[in-house]
């Protein structure tokens, strides 16, 4: 995406968002229980519009469960949450039009071509074919996939697949983009490239809510929260968290939070 196109996209996004008052995402005492097990235990947080928010935690800490509640995949047992100012309890269907979601598992179809995958991603959000093709072409240029657009997605390297999945999840220009451990299993360079794409997406006005357990990635976020056994035990910018803990890396912050 060239600079001017980026600006155009960003201004279009702002125009579409209208008056952006209030947080992009908010939770108050959000809780989810599975039987006797409490996966998410009264978490509260606010994410500002355009922010890149890192949702950290060890495996099994409840990150995915929380994201699924924000996306309308799971109902909360207790508490409340709002996405783009809409309550997840009552406006889940409207929320679904305004969010993008990239799940932990690779979520494109291996047996479809790159192009077909994007057409599908755009189509299920009700985009017109012309809109999809325009945006897809921009994405292909950006990812250098223009010549591969008729290739089967299965034949792409994982790093490309993940960036393609991100592009697909953001094709309809959502207000809030949820990424659930998007960079699992790829090398640091591919992760770096993925984060470049996240930054570009956020620059165009989209709020990014990303879970990860890579602490180097935490440094890229505006603010992060650390979740341990369903509870949020730390919340702030990486700089604040490091200062408060008196350490120099997020890795140490995380270890201290997990094993106080």
């Amino acid at each position: 995406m060239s600079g001017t196109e980026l600006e155009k996209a960003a201004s279009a996004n702002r125009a579409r968002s209208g008056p952006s008052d209030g947080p992009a995402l908010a939770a108050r005492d959000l809780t989810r229980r599975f039987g006797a097990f409490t996966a998410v235990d009264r978490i509260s947080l606010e994410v500002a519009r355009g922010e890149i928010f890192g949702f950290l935690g060890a495996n099994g800490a409840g990150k995915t469960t929380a994201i699924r509640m924000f996306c309308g995949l799971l109902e909360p047992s207790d508490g409340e949450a709002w996405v783009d100012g809409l309550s997840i309890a009552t406006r889940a269907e409207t929320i679904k039009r305004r969010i993008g979601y990239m799940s932990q598992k690779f979520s494109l179809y291996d047996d479809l071509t790159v192009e077909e995958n994007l057409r599908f991603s755009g189509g299920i959000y009700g985009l017109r074919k012309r809109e999809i093709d325009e945006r897809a072409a921009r994405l292909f240029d950006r990812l250098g996939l223009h010549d591969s657009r008729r290739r089967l997605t299965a034949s792409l390297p994982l790093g490309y697949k993940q960036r393609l999945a991100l592009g697909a999840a953001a094709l309809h220009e959502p207000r809030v983009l949820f990424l659930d451990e998007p960079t699992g299993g790829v090398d640091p360079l591919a992760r770096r490239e993925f984060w470049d794409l996240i930054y570009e997406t956020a620059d165009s006005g989209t709020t990014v809510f990303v879970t990860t357990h890579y602490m180097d990635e935490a440094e890229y976020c505006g603010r992060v929260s650390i979740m341990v056994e369903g509870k949020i035990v730390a919340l702030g910018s990486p700089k604040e968290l490091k200062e408060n803990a008196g350490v120099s890396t997020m890795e140490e912050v995380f270890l201290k939070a997990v094993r106080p």
Partner: protein
Amino acid sequence: MRRMLSIARKESNHILRDPRSLAVAIVMPIAMLLLYGYGISTELRDLPVGILDEDRSPASRDLVERMISSGFIMDAGRLDSRDAIEPGFRKGRWRAVVAIGAGFSESLIRESVGRVQVLIDGSDATTAATVDNYLKAVLALAGAPPGESGENLENLPLAGRARILFNPELESANFIVPGLAAIILVMIGALLTSIAVARERETGTMEQILTTPVGPREIIVGKVLPYLVIAYLDAALVVGAGRIVFGVPMNGSWIALAAYSLLYLLVALSLGLLISSLARTQRVAMMAALTATLLPTLLLSGFVFPRSSMPVPLQWLGQIVPATYYLTVIRGIMLKGEAWFPVEGGVLAGMAVLILGAAAARFRTRLE
């Protein structure tokens, strides 16, 4: 609408991208039709039958002559006396014996009823029942009133005359092939769609779709449409092969058959989707689709076993098997040339709506 179409297009891409599954979907029904069409046959050609003519009259000789020339039975030898009957059964020389008693021509003249005893090897009960009906039919064709089967010739109350309608040649293919079409279509239909949702659940793409504004109805309809095309192709192939290979007649309207088949296929496809939305894995979904369609259709629909002779609870159970209705329709259209089945059509349409609705409702329940 646009969202539904993009699901349908995506699903078509899946199908076309996988020529092997496509081939299975096309070849399997034909292979099944040929296998079962030749395999399941209630027809008994060249049944070895011994003949005992105690009457030795022109009338009895005439009957024997006509029975043999009917081409349906094989003359396994003439018996001199009743003592020869049992050893012949034991040695397997004949599966049945037609015994024309000494009073045959006399009673034929006096009471205009000729009595013939039919003895059947009952060691294979199913075959025995078939042989019984079969010989009665042969006797009827040979112009003689059929006799009571078994030993009690003496207390034979009445000799009826059977006239076989709609399938006068007693071609079992005419009976079996429409039934096979009913089985194959419901099985393939359910199988095709049973994988469709379970696969997405397994790969995690369903989770992705559920976070989009796509509604359950759009998913369901979008997924059914492409498979409906394939299932329709299958239906055409199966009925076509039945016509060409087995020579099943088509006495009714193709349009009527196409219309009712559409309803039936919709039921089958939506059944597959419902199973698919309940099953966790593709494998479970496939097994469930096979079990849910094959056995009930085979046992309860009236394809093999006549529904009228089933215990009443099984008859009730048969009423929830879609093939029960389709069977009436397809036999009625192809063999009898009927075209109007308001009850069967209504039930099939109702089933399609109900099952599609249930499948759609299952989707609303998010991820749990």
